């Protein structure tokens, strides 16, 4: 039980980093970015590229990678964000200028999703890849068995969330972003450079999702479809929490992560004791979906949303 909970927190960490980006884009740019998942995969593969470029400086104690991975994460975040800015320049910005609707922007992001996916497959092929050696899980008290790498995943997530929180609350541009999300017209009237706000939104949102991709790759493996598969839990986390809420996105992600792990475990036990032959782990992503439907039916504005 405790083990499943911890596994849920690990999955929730990865979803958190994706969900913060989706919620920022949905809040400030007013559309759901369907390319977010494929940007996540792209980040993971960019890190694979950079890890290959650097010499091996040995591994950190207990972990399956060393300092080169830290550099690779940072560079993957930067490159993926640069790609997102490029797409904003050539695609989303002109659409915004034309006053395209929320749905049009979402559709065009679907096109971007396929562009990223095709690039990944063209460059790296469709097979699964790994950053390095596979790591064995270790036993801890309370029946928890996790890989030491997974402490890194949770730690990095916590670190990045705190950095983003400080950025949004302490820096001038962060405050401008929050202002723009509250009321864009008012923000513009008070002299906030909205294009700069837009750029920073992309940089933060996409670099976080790239980091999520690398962490996901460290935990499991790299596959071109990884981002598309985790996109639904990411969206669900945002929808469950209500758009525009940073902490809500995090809590939503944890709820999704934990319930995916624990519910599949519990249901599997139940089906086993009833002698029903169902492989619940295959349905992990469906749990997120069912959860979303339940939440939306009872609280369409999300759990934390105010329903303005």
């Amino acid at each position, binding site marked *: 039980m405790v083990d499943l909970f911890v596994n849920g927190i690990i999955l929730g960490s990865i979803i958190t980093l994706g969900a913060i980006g989706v919620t920022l884009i949905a809040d400030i740019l007013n559309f759901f970015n369907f390319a977010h998942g494929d940007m996540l995969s792209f980040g993971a593969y960019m890190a694979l590229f950079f890890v290959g470029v650097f010499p091996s400086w040995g591994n950190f104690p207990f972990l399956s990678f060393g300092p080169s991975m830290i550099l690779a994460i940072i560079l993957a975040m930067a490159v993926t964000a640069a790609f997102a800015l490029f797409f904003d320049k050539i*695609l989303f910005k002109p659409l915004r200028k034309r006053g*395209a609707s929320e749905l049009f922007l979402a559709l065009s992001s*679907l096109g971007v999703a396929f*562009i990223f996916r095709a690039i990944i497959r063209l460059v790296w092929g469709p097979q699964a890849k790994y950053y390095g050696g596979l790591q064995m899980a270790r036993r801890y008290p309370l029946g928890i068995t996790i890989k030491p790498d997974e402490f890194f995943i949770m730690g990095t997530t916590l670190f990045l969330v705190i950095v983003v929180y400080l950025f949004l609350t302490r820096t001038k541009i962060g405050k401008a972003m929050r202002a723009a999300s509250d009321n864009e017209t008012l923000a513009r009237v008070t002299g906030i450079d909205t294009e700069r706000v837009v750029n920073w939104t992309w940089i933060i949102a996409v670099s976080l999702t790239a980091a999520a991709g690398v962490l996901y790759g460290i935990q499991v493996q790299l596959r071109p479809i990884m981002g598309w598969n985790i996109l639904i839990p990411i969206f669900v986390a945002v929808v469950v929490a209500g758009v525009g809420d940073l902490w809500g996105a995090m809590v939503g992600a944890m709820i999704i992560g934990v319930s995916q792990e624990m519910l599949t475990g519990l249901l599997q036990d139940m089906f086993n004791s009833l002698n029903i032959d169902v492989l619940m782990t*295959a349905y992990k992503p469906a749990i997120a979906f069912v959860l979303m439907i339940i939440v*939306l039916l009872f609280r369409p504005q999300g759990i934390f949303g105010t329903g303005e």
Partner: protein
Amino acid sequence: MLSYFVSYLVMASTYSVAALALNLQWGFTGLMNFGIGTFYFVGAYASALLTTGASPDYVGGFGLPFIVGLIGAMAISGLLAYVLAYPALKLRGGFFAISMLAISETIRLIVKNEKWLTNGVWGIRGIPQPTRALLGANLAEWVYLGLAIAILIIVYRLTEIGIRSPWGRVLNAVREDEKMAEMSGKNSWRVRMQSFVFGSMVMGVAGALYAHYIGFISPSSFTPLMATFIVWLMILLGGTGSNKGVIVGAFVVWGVWIGSEFLIDFLPSGITSKAGFVRMLLMGILLDVILLIRPQGLFGREKVISKLGSGSEN
């Protein structure tokens, strides 16, 4: 060469049926269905299970005639849409799109994993092509093409009649301004539901047409690219809100898709294995280019004018 052309026409007609269904939902009702492929998928499986011979590997097959398969595909897709409408249609815009995407991935998981029902990833083989048994293989192709075109014409006529009827005007009013339509005493929930269910039924028919033509289906025949994205591309290229336009869009996009296969033959062998991904890239770029430079598509929204009034300007 000629058989290639016939096969192109059959597939393009099948996709046109799917595109008309999506155009009804998105173009005329404003439902951003990112899970349109689900109903295509479900229709294909429904018809396949109903018409193939008995097999120990999956439920059925029932060996029923083609027409039963077609009706079954329609019924099951419609039923699925009806059930899903209760949670999903309460959502608007992007939220609806997300829920449809989630539904489609969930259904893919079910088809992949429930081997007893669908034979899992191995798929279903030997789906009968109704005309092939009666006629020679060569003539059967032509007859099947005739069937596909007949279905396309029926669906086209029905949607045209639908959108030009009072029902269609309510649909239009709901898409443009739902609150206003409600205030005028129109039941927006009901027309959205009807459009969603009817569109999904048509999508199921398209799936059945595909399954009986190809003769083999598996979850990998219905990737998001081939079942959903390409249909979106077709209606955006042709012109959202124009039934003629989306049929042209379907024929053009499918032509480009097939045509790029010929081009691949001329490429060096190293790239050939990756050709599918190049096409995926081109499709993604094409979609964004259309949205950027010609958002109304080739044809643009047709002004739907009733016989009585002069129609609204916008």
